[in-house]
């Protein structure tokens, strides 16, 4: 298998008046062809910063301090904006968090998709582009006649589908879906997730799903990375993450969700609140909330290590390793 995307020791910091915000600190992962990966974390943990670094769509005060992002053999970090524009959408496209706001209200939805096509493939005629949009609409379950409507004439679910159709317009190798269903109702969320999964398999694309909802990720991703306070604290294939979570944060996250399956059980809470990434400490960032924290955790940051085959954890006291396979809810 070939790696589509390879991130090595990415550090992305914001400069603010109050100090430096370490939004993404030492992020490394690889994504292979046809693989779907989930990036899970709470708000402000840096998961969107990672995706924006991959797209090189950073605000003025954000800087990539160090690290590499390899895509198609090129290091994205070093490309000029013009070269990057060629990769955007044609190579890596995105499904944004707030679909209702990611369509320009003054243009027809179809035209906004056609714009993406004709920018990257100037030889495509208008009629051909329209044909392609029509087939994309069918693929995501929209009526192609709605192409000529304006965004405000779409419902929330339809907009989300249109945004998905748009992300597929140039046959990208990689799609980053940033909370693609957060604003939607459960039933619509379910159908859209299933469609995304189907399309991804059919077109053999790589995907990165970003979400705070571990249950959603469990359904669509084959590999999961858990982020906490700007760092990836644990990464493995999804079954391992759910059956043998090793980082105390992951363990806490798993048991803090009320479930609809199985017997009703008491919820376990993670005490405290996520830290402010402003002038982040140099000890383990989870230590203040961790029930297993020892002096070691307060002294230095744990390194990010492979504790078993393809299971990476950044913790001095990984859990569940030798224990029996954990009986998970469900």
């Amino acid at each position, binding site marked *: 298998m070939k790696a589509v995307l390879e991130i090595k020791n990415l550090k992305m910091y914001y400069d*603010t*008046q109050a100090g430096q915000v370490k939004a993404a600190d030492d992020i490394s992962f690889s994504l292979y062809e046809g693989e779907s990966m989930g990036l899970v974390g709470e708000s402000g943990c840096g998961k969107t910063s990672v995706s924006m670094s991959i797209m090189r769509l950073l*605000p*003025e*005060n954000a800087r990539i301090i160090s690290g590499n992002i390899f895509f198609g053999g090129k290091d994205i970090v070093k490309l000029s904006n013009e070269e990057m524009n060629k990769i955007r959408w044609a190579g890596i496209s995105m499904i944004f968090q707030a679909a209702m706001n990611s369509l320009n209200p003054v243009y027809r939805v179809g035209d906004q998709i056609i714009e993406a096509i004709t920018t990257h493939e100037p030889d495509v005629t208008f009629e051909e582009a329209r044909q392609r949009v029509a087939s994309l609409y069918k693929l995501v379950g929209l009526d192609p006649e709605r192409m000529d409507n304006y965004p405000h004439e779409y419902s929330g679910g339809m907009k989300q589908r249109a945004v998905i159709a748009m992300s597929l317009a140039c046959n990208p190798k990689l799609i980053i879906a940033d909370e693609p269903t957060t604003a939607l109702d459960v039933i619509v969320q379910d159908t859209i997730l299933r469609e995304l999964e189907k399309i991804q398999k059919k077109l053999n694309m790589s995907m990165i799903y970003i979400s705070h909802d571990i249950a959603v990720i469990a359904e669509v991703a084959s590999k999961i990375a858990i982020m906490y306070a700007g760092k990836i604290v644990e990464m493995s294939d999804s079954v391992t993450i759910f059956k043998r979570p090793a980082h105390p944060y992951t363990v806490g996250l798993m048991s803090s969700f009320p479930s609809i399956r199985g017997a009703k059980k008491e919820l376990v809470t993670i*005490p*405290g609140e996520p830290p402010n990434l402003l002038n982040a400490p140099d000890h383990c960032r989870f230590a203040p909330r961790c029930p297993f924290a020892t002096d070691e955790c307060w002294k230095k940051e744990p390194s990010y290590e492979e504790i078993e085959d393809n299971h990476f954890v950044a913790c001095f006291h990984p859990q569940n390793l030798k224990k029996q396979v954990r009986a998970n809810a469900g």
Partner: protein
Amino acid sequence: MTNNPNTTVEMADAKLESPALIRMKLMWRSFKENWKIFSQSKIGMIGLYIVIIFAVAGFIVYPILAATVWKTTSLNAMASYNPVTGYDFVQNNPAPPSWAHLLGTDPLGRDILAQLLYSTPREFMLGIVAALITVIIGTLIGTVAAYFGGALDTFFMRVADIVLLFPFIPFLIVISGMMQVDLLTLALIIGLLSGFGGITIVLRSQALIVKSRPFIESAKISGASDSYIIVNHIIPNVMPLSFLYMMFNVTGAIFSEAVLSFFGLLNIKMSWGLMIYTADTAGYIIGSNIWNYWWLWLPAGASITLLCGAFYFIGRGLDEVVNPRLRKR
């Protein structure tokens, strides 16, 4: 939540500072926070400095000079410093700047600097009174119309539409041409006209946003009356915007006064606009001639422009305090 039993307060011993003191401290703190944002706006600070300079000149320097150096007695040569009635017999008027008259004299022999300083507090008064009337009317009508909606809202919005239709300065010209208008009347007219117009629409739409926020419903559920909600919730949240518009209205009022007195339409003794009017009607501001008699129009014109601009600058600076979306980061 970390719940350290050592830090919990024993209810019986809990001693609160006096509420008035705390509230003063709070106001001071939020003032400091807002000042920090405002002071980062270069334009706003330039405006503030200009306004302070004018205020010092008008409210402190002029009374001192008038009472000491420019003291007028009937037989005193210094009588020429009376901004309205003075006359300098010693020289040909208008005279260029000299040690006796730092900014020269006008065609009637009066000292330009004295006129300039004499007018300053009056310009402030006019601008601030007009803007206060505007903002009070605009805030009250805007919030009440937004809160109650319905026919009341429709009525005031149609009134605003009509007021907006009126070409502002032509209208003022006709009114002041047909009847005798003094400074206070003018402030009242400007205040009323702009109070019922655009500012009502802006503040109403802001009040509508505030009205739809859940803390209003929260208060209603606790049994709050309409007046309680308007006074305690809506107005405090609209106030920053009102204050911002007040700055822009000061600019508008001073500008309008200058235009009207420039056309000689106001019944006032002295103002910056009137100084230019005097020079213009006496024929000193014509084409190539104008730089020969620059002291007749430039100080007054520059003062109008600077003071109008300064309040506008402050408004722009405040805009960044009030509207966080305009801030850089």
